Structure formats: C-alpha cells, structure tokens
C-alpha cells in the first residue's frame, strides 16, 4: 500500500525552518557573515562601475575638452593644413597645441626635470576647465610669458606661484598650480607632469626646431549643427593618409568606457575571490551545523517527515540567512562605494558621483543568496542520507561525501558557476578557463598545503612539549575543526598581499639591476648635430664618461615588397601591415651590434658602400608585426629622399637596459648624412652629480632633454605604489574575509570549547593557562596560514622572476617575515578577543546546562 500524499506545503516548511532556527539564529548569522565582506566588495565595485559609466557619459565632453580633436606627430603637410582649415570653417572656435617632452628648470632652487611641455593657443578647453590655483590662472596664463605647472612638480621642487620656470631659453612666471586638465589622471601626471605655456611664446624657447619630437593637437568646438562623428567618418580615409588621428566625444566615451569596464571586471574578479572564500567558510560552518542537527532531523524523519521535507527546512534557513547576509553585505558595499573614488582617484579622468545603485544592490543580493545556497548544498544534501534510526542510536552509516553522486553534481555546479561568472567578466574562453583553473588550483593547493602541514604536525607531534603547548597544537585537529578553511582563507589573503610586495620589489630591482656597474644610468637626448661635440665636452668636463653616442633619424616606411599604403588600402587581401606603411620610425645606423642585441636570423651587415642597397636589421617582434621575411624589400622615405632596403637580419633586443634600442638599424654608409639628432649616454655616480649635470645642460643646451635612472625609479615607484594601493585594498577584502571566517569559527565552536574549558577548570586549570592554550592554538593557526600564503607567494614570484621578468629571484625576506608576523599576530589577537566569553564563563553555568 502506498502512503497518501502529504498535505504540508511551503508555508509549513517555512514555519518549521523558522521554529528550528530558534536559539540558532545568531549562530546562523555568524555562518553567513563570511559572505558579507565578499558581497560588500562586489556591490561596492558594481555600484562604482555603474556610477563611473554614468559619469563617463555625463562628463565625456570634459574628457577631451572639445567636440573634435585632431592629433598628429608631424608638421602638417599642405593637404593636412587644408583639412584643418576646412574644419576650421565649420567651427565656432579652434585651439592649437604643441606638446613635447623637455627639460625645465625651477630658477629659485635650480631644480631640473623632464616634463611634458604643452604650448597652448586659443581658448581650449571648451568643456570643463584647466583646474588651477588660483582659479583665474587657467585663463590668465595665456596673456604673456606665464606658465601653469603641475601640482606634483610644484611640490617636488617646493615652488610657489610667482616663481620662475625656465622652458628652453625663456623664463616664464608661474601663474598657477595645475590641479587637473581634461583627460588627465594621477598616473599620467606621474609619468609626464605638464607645464602649460602660451603657444605664442613657443618659438622664443627655441624648442620647436626641425627634428624635435612634437605632437600637434587641434581642438575644434562646433555649434549644434555639426555632427563631429559624421564629419570624422567622412574624412576618415584622408585623415588616415595624412596620419592624423581623431577623437570625438563619442569615441572618447567608448574608449574610456571600455578601458574602465576592463578595470571594473578585474576588480569584480578580485571581489569574487573574497566571496568564494566566504562561501567556503559558509559551507564549512553549515557542515558543522547540520551535523549538530542530525538528531532533530532524525526525529522529524521518525515523525514522518520525508527526506525532501527535512532538506527543504534547512535549505529555507540557508536561503533566509543568505538573504540577510547579502542584504547587510549590499548595505556595507554601498557605504564602501563612497571610499572607492578616493582609492581610484589616480586612475580616473572624471569625477565620480556616489549615488546608490539599486541594480548593483539587487545583483549583489541575488548573487549572495545563490552562492550561499550553492555552497551550503554540499552539507545540505547529506540530510537525505540521515536515517531516522539516529533517534534510537547514532548511525554512522552515511555515505562519505565523495561517494555521493549528488556531491559531485554540486561540485560540478560550483565550478560551472565560477566559470560562468568569470566568463561574464572576462569575455574570453581562454581567459575564463585560465581564471577558473587558477582559482580551483589555488584553493586546492592551499587546501592541500594546509592538510599536509596539519598531518605533518600530527605525525611528528612534539610529545615532549609542555602540556599547554601540546593542547594548543592538538586543538588544530579537534573534531569539527575549521583549520583547513581558515588556512585557505587567511593564506589566500596573505598570498595576495605578499605576491604584490614581491612583484613590486622585483620590478624596482629589475630597473636598478639594469643599470648596475658600468651600464649607463643617464640619457641625454634631442641633441642637434651641431651641439653634439659641445654636449660631449660638457659631460667630460663634469668628469663623467661618454659611454655611447647614437644618431637618430626619423624615417617613414613607404612600401613593403613594392606594396604601398595606397595599394594595401585598395586591396585588403594583400598580406602587409597597413599600420606599418606610412608610419614613422626612429632608426639609427651603426657598424656593430650592441651587447643588448643578438642576431636570431639572417646575417648582420654593419657597413655598405655608397650606392649599394641598404641591408637593414629588424627587431624580431617588429618584423613579425609588419609581416616581413629575410630578403624582403622595403622602401623608406628619409626626410624626402627615397631609400630602398633589403631585410638582412632579425635581432632579439634586451629592452630592459637604460640605453637606446631600435626596431630597425641601417648599416653605415646609407643614411649617415640625413638630418638627425643625437643621444648621449653617461653614468653619474650620485644624485648630486646628476643634479649638477642636469642644471649645466639645461642652462647651456635648453633643447636637450635628460632621463636619469633616479627619475625612472621614482616614477616606477610612484606608479607601483598607486597600483599597489588598489590591489592591497582589494586583497584586504580576502584577508578580512579570512578574519571573519576565523571569528565565525571561534563562535561556532564556542559551546564545544566552553565544555572543554569547564572540564579543564574543574580539574584546576587557571584562567591564564586557558588563555595560553587558546593563544597558542591561534599562534599555530596564524603561523600555518601565513606561512602557506607567503610560501605560495614566493613560488608565484619565483615563477614570475624566472619566466616573465627574467631577473634573478631575490625575495625581500624581511618584508615577508614582517608580513608573517603581522598576520599571525592579528590571528592571535582576533582569536583571543573572541574567546574571552568562552574562557570567562563560570563552570557551573555549563555544568547546569549539561545536566
């Protein structure tokens, strides 16, 4: 006979879930607290992205400051001039700018630095403004010999408004401090801080001579009748021929939106890792919870509840707490969102609003519920196997999790979910697979390392240690321990931060190494041919060596195997790089290979007789990019003279050195007499000498620019510091999740610990001894977790050093040790603070409860 169908509906299941959760609600909340941080991170990032998208939309015009910008890096040809003039006819206003790198000198203290000089004519920007202190300086500097100087430069050289700054041969009065210009962000000003001067004063500086590397920008403002995008698409092919790039508000919006969408996706993945960590915490806590509920489940089954009903009761509880945790996470995320514009300020070209994004909150809550249920399913599906026989006696006849086919389905679902989430963020199968495999591998590796360490401790248990030490250590493998999950969570956070430190250290070390011993560490460039001997003399007069002098000639590649840019444009089936044709290249000519170069194919030819075809050498990556082979013929336009050449060899170049390297090298005897400028390399022993030579060069040869290793290092350090701050901020979510899992785990095992402590106290243990046992337990836990994290980071950075950066692996052991100590100390402090209640509880209270 079949039993009649049950009459209980969802309402009863919800009622039972609610009843069953009594006395457990605070514990249930603790379980889910682990996901709060992850959800908060994601909601903050989603909201930030949402606001960023809106702000980019609203402020797109201020990103470029005009309706249309034309940009070229050479003086306009007659045809180019004609285009600009034709657009000028359509415009309300036009501004012109010439920008280039040059040395400047602060005359008050003699400080010199390479900056981006922006000579501006007209009323640009038309949208937004040059934000300056004082405010009026943004327009006032255009009247007469005045300059706007970037705030970082002002700080660096302790300059004041009203001081003088020498640009080329002219001294400008500093009219104001430049806070922000359209399209600039903290990173771009670190690399190339700007000095604005009036365009009318540029010729007097003597810096815009023939051969100078100047970028020309034309800013147009239209009235409502001209569609900038339509205009650009109409002029597209002619702009391409003239090598003029264009930007409109819409194109800028698209490009900025795309690059920040990438950043947002990356950040979402970092937040997602914190959420995954939290979910493993939830799964582990629910596992203990369900184990404790075994008896109640058995009673319900005994009274006639089906396996599905019992399963659903606890699933509803998880849904409820998942919802609550996600909601709290979403609220916290909305608060954290207010911080993100500060964290990311150096990367943002627009000012960010902090509106509440309901869509992001909904996404966060939905994701939180789904992921908490998904990860809780692993312990929940075991309910199906709990037999009602447990009411009579404890039955251990439950199939192990690995023998239950449903468990494997849940594992599959989890991996599928990680894959799906990553796919939405990364939008590429290979990247998604790499991320998913990386996450799974990292978790498994951490988990395996944690288990290995724990089993080693068990195996080689120090039986001779004092009782307190042994008890503290053995607490790590107490029943229902959460050691492995804590090691994974705290270890992953530590690994993140440690890896970041190591990579930062490595990148700095790479640059430092590149200029070790007798390598050059200062480059003087833009030296005119007529100045070459005098500059070299000046360097020698300062007791410095001239390590190398290199001529540089700007050439244009006109044809590859007879195919010109026009041919390529007409026939897209031709196998040549359209971008390479007509593009400018800075090349040199020399007889010998430098020690940073190695021939990989063909034969190096260093000299040819006049009239013979030029046998050129191409850098391998460049050759690949423009798709040429050894023996192919190339045609160059060298400042108006056509020079045919044959590809003679390919070279591998070590770009890491502070020295001039080239994509293409001519042999001596072909372009030796073409207009050229020169680069001189030297080695300065210290900062004082560096400052002295820079001052001398700027005073005598204002057009000559200087880069020294100190500048490269300080820029690199500043950029890495800014990126590092963001990554540390995001990595902090993982560490924080680790600590929340730790707090939750202490609370979850509170009752069990209370009973143990009561027993120990009954047997005469003092409060101090109990504290010592607890402290030692967390000391071991913190040590194992941070050790595993640092160890993984060391492996990761070793792999990066050997396979990617190709530098000797020399980890910063002191920083790693400090990190190890601080993570361990934090673990001990958090563990102890949360155990106070357990240790301070009077024994009788527990004994009475047990009786």
């Amino acid at each position, binding site marked *: *006979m*079949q*039993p*009649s169908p*049950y*009459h*209980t509906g969802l309402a*009863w299941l919800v*009622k*039972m879930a609610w*009843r*069953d*959760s*009594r*006395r*457990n609600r605070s514990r249930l909340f603790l379980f889910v607290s682990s996901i709060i941080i992850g959800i908060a991170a994601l909601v903050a990032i989603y909201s930030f992205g949402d606001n960023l998208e809106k702000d980019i939309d609203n402020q797109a015009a201020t990103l470029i400051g005009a309706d249309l910008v034309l940009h070229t890096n050479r003086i306009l040809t007659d045809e180019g001039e004609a285009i600009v003039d034709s657009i000028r006819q359509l415009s309300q206003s036009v501004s012109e700018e010439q920008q280039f790198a040059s040395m400047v000198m602060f005359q008050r203290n003699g400080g010199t630095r390479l900056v981006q000089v922006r000579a501006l004519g007209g009323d640009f920007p038309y949208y937004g403004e040059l934000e300056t202190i004082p405010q009026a300086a943004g327009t006032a500097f255009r009247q007469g010999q005045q300059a706007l100087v970037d705030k970082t430069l002002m700080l660096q050289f302790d300059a004041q408004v009203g001081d003088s700054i020498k640009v080329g041969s002219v001294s400008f009065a500093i009219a104001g401090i430049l806070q922000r210009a359209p399209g600039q962000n903290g990173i771009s000003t670190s690399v190339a801080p700007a000095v604005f001067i009036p365009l009318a004063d540029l010729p007097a500086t003597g810096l815009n001579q023939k051969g100078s590397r100047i970028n020309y920008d034309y800013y147009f403002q239209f009235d409502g009748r001209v569609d900038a995008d339509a205009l650009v698409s109409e002029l597209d092919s002619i702009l391409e021929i003239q090598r003029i790039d264009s930007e409109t508000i819409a194109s800028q919006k698209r490009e900025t939106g795309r690059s920040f969408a990438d950043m947002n996706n990356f950040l979402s993945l970092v937040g997602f890792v914190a959420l995954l960590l939290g979910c493993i915490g939830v799964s582990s806590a629910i596992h203990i919870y369900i184990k404790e509920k075994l*008896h*109640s489940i058995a*009673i*319900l*089954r*005994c*009274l*006639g*509840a*089906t*396996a*599905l*009903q019992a399963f659903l009761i606890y699933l509803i509880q998880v849904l409820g707490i998942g919802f609550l945790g996600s909601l709290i996470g979403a609220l916290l995320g909305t608060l954290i969102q207010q911080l993100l514009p500060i964290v990311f300020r150096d990367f943002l070209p627009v000012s960010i609003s902090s509106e509440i994004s309901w869509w992001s909150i909904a996404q966060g809550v939905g994701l939180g519920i789904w992921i908490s249920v998904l990860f809780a399913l692993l312990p929940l599906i075991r309910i199906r196997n709990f*037999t*009602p*026989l447990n*009411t*009579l*006696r404890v039955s251990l*006849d439950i199939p192990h999790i690995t023998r239950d086919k449903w468990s494997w389905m849940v594992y599959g679902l989890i991996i599928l979910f990680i894959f799906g989430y990553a796919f939405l963020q990364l939008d590429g199968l290979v990247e998604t697979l790499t991320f998913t495999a990386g996450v799974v591998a990292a978790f498994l590796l951490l988990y395996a390392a944690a288990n290995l360490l724990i089993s080693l401790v068990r195996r080689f248990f120090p039986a001779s240690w004092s009782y307190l030490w042994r008890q503290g250590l053995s607490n790590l493998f107490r029943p229902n321990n959460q050691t492995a999950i804590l090691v994974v969570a705290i270890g992953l956070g530590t690994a993140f931060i440690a890896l970041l430190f190591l990579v930062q250290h490595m990148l700095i070390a790479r640059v430092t190494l590149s200029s070790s011993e007798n390598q050059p560490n200062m480059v003087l460039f833009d030296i005119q041919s007529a100045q070459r001997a005098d500059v070299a003399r000046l360097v020698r007069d300062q007791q410095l060596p001239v390590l190398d002098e290199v001529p540089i000639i700007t050439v244009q590649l006109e044809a590859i195997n007879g195919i010109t840019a026009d041919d390529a444009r007409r026939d897209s089936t031709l196998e040549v790089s359209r971008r390479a044709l007509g593009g400018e290249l800075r090349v040199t000519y020399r007889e010998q290979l430098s020690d940073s170069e190695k021939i990989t194919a063909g034969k190096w030819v260093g000299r040819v007789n006049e009239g013979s075809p030029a046998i050129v050498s191409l850098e391998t990556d460049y050759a690949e990019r423009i798709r040429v082979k050894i023996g192919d013929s190339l045609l160059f336009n060298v400042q108006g003279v056509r020079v045919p050449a044959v590809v003679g060899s390919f070279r591998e170049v070590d770009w890491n050195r502070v020295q001039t390297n080239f994509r293409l090298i001519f042999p001596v005897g072909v372009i030796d007499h073409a207009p050229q400028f020169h680069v001189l390399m030297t080695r300065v022993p210290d900062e004082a000498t560096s400052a002295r030579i820079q001052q001398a060069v700027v005073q005598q040869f204002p057009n000559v620019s200087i880069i020294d290793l100190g500048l490269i290092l300080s820029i690199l350090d500043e950029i890495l510091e800014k990126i590092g701050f963001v990554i540390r901020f995001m990595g902090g979510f993982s560490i924080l999740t680790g600590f929340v899992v730790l707090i939750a785990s202490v609370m979850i095992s509170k009752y069990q610990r209370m009973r143990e402590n009561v027993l120990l106290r009954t047997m005469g243990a003092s409060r101090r001894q109990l504290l010592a046992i607890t402290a030692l337990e967390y000391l071991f836990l913190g040590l194992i977790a941070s050790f595993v994290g640092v160890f993984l980071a060391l492996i990761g950075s070793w792999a990066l050093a050997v396979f990617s950066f190709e530098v000797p692996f020399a980890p910063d052991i002191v920083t790693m040790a400090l990190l190890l100590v601080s993570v361990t100390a934090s673990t001990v402090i958090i563990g102890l603070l949360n155990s106070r209640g357990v240790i301070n509880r009077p024994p009788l209270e527990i004994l009475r409860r047990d009786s």
Partner: protein
Amino acid sequence: MAISLSVNQVSKAYRSGGQSLTVLHDINFEIEEASTAAIIGPSGSGKTTLLGLCAGLDRVTTGSIVLNGIVLDKLTEDERAGVRNRHVGFVFQNFQLLPTLTALENIMVPLELRGERNGKAKALSLLDKVGLADRGHHYPLQLSGGEQQRISIARAFSNSPKILFADEPTGNLDADTSEHIERLLFALNEDTGTTLVLVTHDPELAARTQRVIRMKGGAILSDTPTQTGNS
C-alpha cells in the same frame, strides 16, 4: 482479533569493519490489535534494532514486516515515513523532543505533517491530558525529564496511531516519575485502543503488558503471556 504487527523470518545484518555482523536471526512473531507487548533482554540482545525495524526506521536484511497490513520492506524510505506519520507513535528513552520547538509545537508536528487543520486544538487537548496545559509554551530545556517524557507521550498519541512503540520510556527517569509515566502511557493506550510495543530492561514495566518477548543474542528466547495477558 486482527493482527497489528507481523514479523516474519526477519534477520538484520550490518557491515562493520568490512565484515558482516548479524544482529537479528530469524525473528517471528505477531501482535494483535489493541494489545500490549514488551520486548526485554540484556544489552546488545537486539531489542532496539528489532523495535526500529518494526517501526519502519530501518530495512530488514531478510524476511518481512507487515504493519497494519502494509508490507514495510517493499516501501522506500519516504513511503515508510508516510506510514510512520499515519500509523505509528513513538516514545523514546531520551524523549527526543525538538529542542527549538515549544512543548505545544512538538505535539503539533505530526499533525502538521499530515496537514490537519485543527492540529492546535488537538495538541492543546493532549497537553491537558498529560497534565501540562500550562507548559505549552515552554521549550524542552525548560522542562524536567518527566515533563519532557509526558510531552513525548502526548506527541506520540497526537496522530491517533494504530501502534505505539516505546523504547525504554522510563529509562531516564526516577522511580516516582517512572510510575507516573507508565500509568499515563497505559491509560492513553487503553483509551485509544492503540497497540503498544515497548522495549525495556524493567521487569515490572514488562509485567504490565500482556505479553513478554525475551531476546538474547539476536534471537527470541521466549514469547510468553504475562499475568496481565492471562487475565
């Protein structure tokens, strides 16, 4: 009289340490409707296992059990849960109340599971019958052992079971409370005409039933009527 429980050639074996351990051998007996029976025997004799099998908490290895005309060993676990809900009541040695439910809610659970609408009224009436009308909103932890067992008995009778299984119902109680519980159990059993099968170590309690099945080493040693049964 109709047969309430029929146990036919039942044996039960478990796998333990990779080996098969037979805990019940060839058990046969029948219990008539509205009768009372006690299963007694030393620890490890298989009494509780037998009780669990009779109540459909586990499956037999061989043989069959028929409960109110339903062959249990043909049913799935969920089907057996349905049988338990409609035909069976339980009283356990350690009460087995759901700790997060109040006394009243504990009594209501079997009724709610079968979708009864007047479950609360019936539970209140049972609460009154077991003398705990004023303790309905207390949680198990707030009740004494005797009170918890009375709630457990009320819950067992809430679904008007055809058969009631009791596993050492007084095993955790002092003598006075035990006496009170026994009286309550037998009185309710008599009122409702329920079949009562109990497992006990207590010869006095066993003597109050109509029949005693004595077990040893997983087999029935004797199956005899008591004086109560004879009378």
